[in-house]
């Protein structure tokens, strides 16, 4: 059984707007609606679980009611204090309502609305076969490393570098067990869910992302997203 897990925990400080960035509009709809539509329409999901800060739960439900009124496979629940706690809330929800046996979760940023059918499908296939996967694209810029923020300490070989996107997908039971096996110190250095596996030496399969699968983080990104919409309305 597969579940979409939409992470809408952002409070949007970087965007400089009043409300969390997932509620800003691209075209005629909030970003989160564009994103959730993609998951809600993917027929392989039993449920699409959307996680938001507690104070935004009712607002999110209202937004979905307004724009996605006829879709009944979406549920909005409270996220956690940090990203991985938010994912664990989704895992708990699945465990309580469906059980974790054979459950695969496809976790995705609410502010990546340009995800495609292929990426979702390949995530499910890879997580089902390998246990965990990350969506990435080859790094185009040279990435440099600095220990002190003043001078370069290392320039890694770009051919081995990738930029992480989402979705990141997992067998839910294995994710939960691996996460719970982490020490508090290990949990503190986590930047994303795949690192739970990397820390424990577990393999994470790669799924090819798309350059346009952008995360709307800065006002500039919103402009890019609006430009990507130049194709206009279909039908």
């Amino acid at each position: 059984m597969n579940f979409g897990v939409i992470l809408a925990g952002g409070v949007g400080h970087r965007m400089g707007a009043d409300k969390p960035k997932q509620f800003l509009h691209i075209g005629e709809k909030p970003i989160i609606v564009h994103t959730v539509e993609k998951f809600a329409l993917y027929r392989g999901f039993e449920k699409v679980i959307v996680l938001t800060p507690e104070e935004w739960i009712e607002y999110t439900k209202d937004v979905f009611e307004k724009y996605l009124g006829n879709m009944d496979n979406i549920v909005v629940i409270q996220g956690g204090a940090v990203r991985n706690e938010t994912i664990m809330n989704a895992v708990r929800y699945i465990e309580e309502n469906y059980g974790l046996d054979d459950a695969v979760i496809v976790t995705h940023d609410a502010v990546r609305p340009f995800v495609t059918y292929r990426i979702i499908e390949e995530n499910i296939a890879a997580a089902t076969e390998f246990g965990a996967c990350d969506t990435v694209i080859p790094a185009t810029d040279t990435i440099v490393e600095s220990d002190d923020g003043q001078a370069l300490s290392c320039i890694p070989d770009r051919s081995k570098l990738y930029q992480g996107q989402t979705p990141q997908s997992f067998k839910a039971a294995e994710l939960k067990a691996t996460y719970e096996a982490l020490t508090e110190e290990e949990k503190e250095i986590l930047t994303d869910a795949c690192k739970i596996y990397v820390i424990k030496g577990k393999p994470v399969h790669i799924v090819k992302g798309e350059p346009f699968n952008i995360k709307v983080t800065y006002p500039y990104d919103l402009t890019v997203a609006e430009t990507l919409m130049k194709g206009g309305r279909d039908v």
Partner: protein
Amino acid sequence: MFNTIYRLVKPRKFETEFTDIDLNQDVVVVRPTHLSICNADQRYYQGKRAPEVLKKKLPMALIHEGIGKVVYDSKGEFTEGECVVMIPNTPVEEDDIIAENYLRSSKFRASGFDGFMQDNVPMRRDRLVRLPDGINKEVAAFTEIASVSYHAISRFQRFSHERRNHIAVWGDGNLAFITSLFIKYRIPDVKLSIFGIDDDKMSEFTFADGTYHVDEIPEDMAFDHAFECVGNMASGTAINQIIDYINPEGTISILGVSEDPVPINTRMVLEKGLRIFGSSRSGRKDFEEIVQFYADNPEVVNYLERIVGEVFDVREIEDFTKAFEADIHKAGGKTIMIWNK
């Protein structure tokens, strides 16, 4: 919902663009699964259409032959996952006399608007026909071209006199193969002769009663009616050969597309009292009938498997190019794209 569209922006150059599908209006969203490349797509891809046509129509998503799975229906009439064939012709008015595919106001996928090279295709519900379970999907992918043959034969049966003892087909390509096969199944006891230029291709027409090279036609050759499936400038040569050999008051069905006007021996058309009619595209009725035809005659689908050419697993834009380039250089058969983009 954002939809990713892969449009041809100029010859041999695809780019990604996005549209917004309004899920709150009446719409059925179809995820393409199998797409088939047509010569019309190639004319855009290779830039063989007139420059003013390319300028007017591009950017545009190509492909008008394809099937897919329903992923969303605003009214719930289609079940999610149902396999459907997508009808590219899209009428915007009704007419009691003129068929939908001949109404000048109708729009056509990959000609007047975006074709099926999309992440999801928003379709009008009357533009979908359910496919039977278990049908060969690579064959089903080119249902559209088959429906054009089917449509032309239906019209032929309306227009032609009833002495249909011997029918000739000019052409040895995919359209000729499909049309010939359907004639053999739809007109019982007909004697079917094929006229082409490629002996290897014509050897595939095993169901025909005879095959002839167009340069070696017996002098006493005669037939009641004929179908032209050649296209381009050679269609003129083909039509004039048909006019030479056809019996008086015969009917000639023209199916081959030519970018340029072709000269026809009208004197002999008049003297023999011939009827010549053209057919292009097809409508919902033709799709419904051909799907039933396939269900009733599984051996027809089996024959059509012979013209499935190269099959490409398409995941990257580079894969589009591979498929289109291979299609240019193919010996024959329909090039199929398994749509995993």
